[in-house]
């Protein structure tokens, strides 16, 4: 059975995502429950880390809360970086070599109309750059990346999980084995409706 690691099985989306992969025959381990001596190869890392702080609502005139911004950066970015570093040797040993992360179209510098939500959006912009740089480093080793917006406000967790499952497990398009026409040759943010969003 193929091992995959999910960051946690806490939110409804995480539970639904773990259930879909289990249904499809994968052995889904939660990173927090894995013993430190677990050293089997891992196919996919499903990093579902995605924290939003209820107090992250201030505008520039409403009093910037630096503590909220710091906490959000730590929870959304530093945790993900540590998770990848921890499982990289086992991912290297696996066949799948696919990494999955959560973001939001609301964290697109191109698209957002927001006047607040600095902590979440800035942390995700940092994550996007982390993933772009990780893409540079890992694609020569055969890795592929998936960045997904589960559209938590609009899409039910089980439907978002089905969308994520297919997005993770399908290869992205390539015509006639032509590397110049290979959609895996770039990092993309796609939402649960299949729409791509700019950085």
């Amino acid at each position, binding site marked *: 059975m193929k091992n995959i690691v999910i960051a946690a099985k806490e939110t409804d989306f995480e539970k639904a995502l773990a259930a879909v992969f289990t249904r499809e025959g994968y052995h889904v381990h939660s990173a927090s429950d894995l013993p430190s001596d677990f050293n089997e190869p891992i196919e996919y890392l499903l990093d579902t880390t995605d924290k939003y702080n209820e107090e992250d609502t201030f505008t*520039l005139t409403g009093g910037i809360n*630096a503590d909220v*911004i*710091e906490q959000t*950066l730590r929870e959304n970015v530093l945790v993900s970086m540590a998770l990848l570093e921890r499982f990289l040797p086992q991912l290297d040993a696996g066949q799948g070599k696919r990494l999955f992360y959560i973001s939001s179209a609301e964290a697109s510098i191109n698209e957002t109309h927001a006047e*607040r939500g600095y902590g979440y959006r800035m942390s995700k*912009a940092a994550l996007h*750059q982390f993933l772009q*740089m990780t*893409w540079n480093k890992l694609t020569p080793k055969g890795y592929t990346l998936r960045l997904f917006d589960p559209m938590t406000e609009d899409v039910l967790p089980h439907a978002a999980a089905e969308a994520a499952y297919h997005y993770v497990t399908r290869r992205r398009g390539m015509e006639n084995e032509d590397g110049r026409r290979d959609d895996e040759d770039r990092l993309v943010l796609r939402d649960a409706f299949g729409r791509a969003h700019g950085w």
Partner: protein
Amino acid sequence: MPNVLITGADRGLGLSLCKEYLQRGWTVFAGKFMEDFTLLEDLQAQNTSLHILWLDVGCEDSINEAVQAIIRTTDHLDMLISNAALMGDVKCKLYEPPMELEQVWDSFRVNALGPLLLVEKFMPLLEKSKEKRLCFVSSEVACITLMQHRHDSPYPYPMSKAAMNMGIRIMHNYLHPKGYTFRLFHPGWMKKRAPDGSLSETALYDPDFIGEIAAKYFDKNLGDEHRLVMVDYNGYEWPW
């Protein structure tokens, strides 16, 4: 004449921008951060319109103190140039464990959170100006699109500059309708200045050369002030 606050002004582009605006007859408030550099003091000896104040943009208290220092001289601020940045060589790459993740926070604190806090704290002074111009020195490494295929650099600095650009987008959404105008600038690969004023061999451009270009771009009124884009020293526009 107008006035301007420039952060990270001890050397490099910040110092060059101080010289540019002094030549134009502006009053310049220069943020000092490096104790071992005295190039600002040398400049002040020739020009009384230069005011030096201690400013660590990674520290909220320091920003508050800088606001108080400026209030002793003026009741308004026309232009703010956020130039300071933490760039040092850090140990934070995959396959070189352990990554020093605190460096990610440190870069973010200075390069992304710093500009945000600066604007927040100086808003009462900016509000009293007709100009209300906010200028941010960013970088090509902030650009996620063109980071693809770029060679193996440590994570913290590019991540912090991308986060900074997002912070500026949110600020722009909120402040542009209130009469603020924005400049976001990539200065190119600049030489480093040593304490004696000499320039490093590596890199392409003298910061004085870039400073002249940047000062003109920051100062000039544009026809498309409603648009937020990153522009480089050639006048080229960058994607996000």
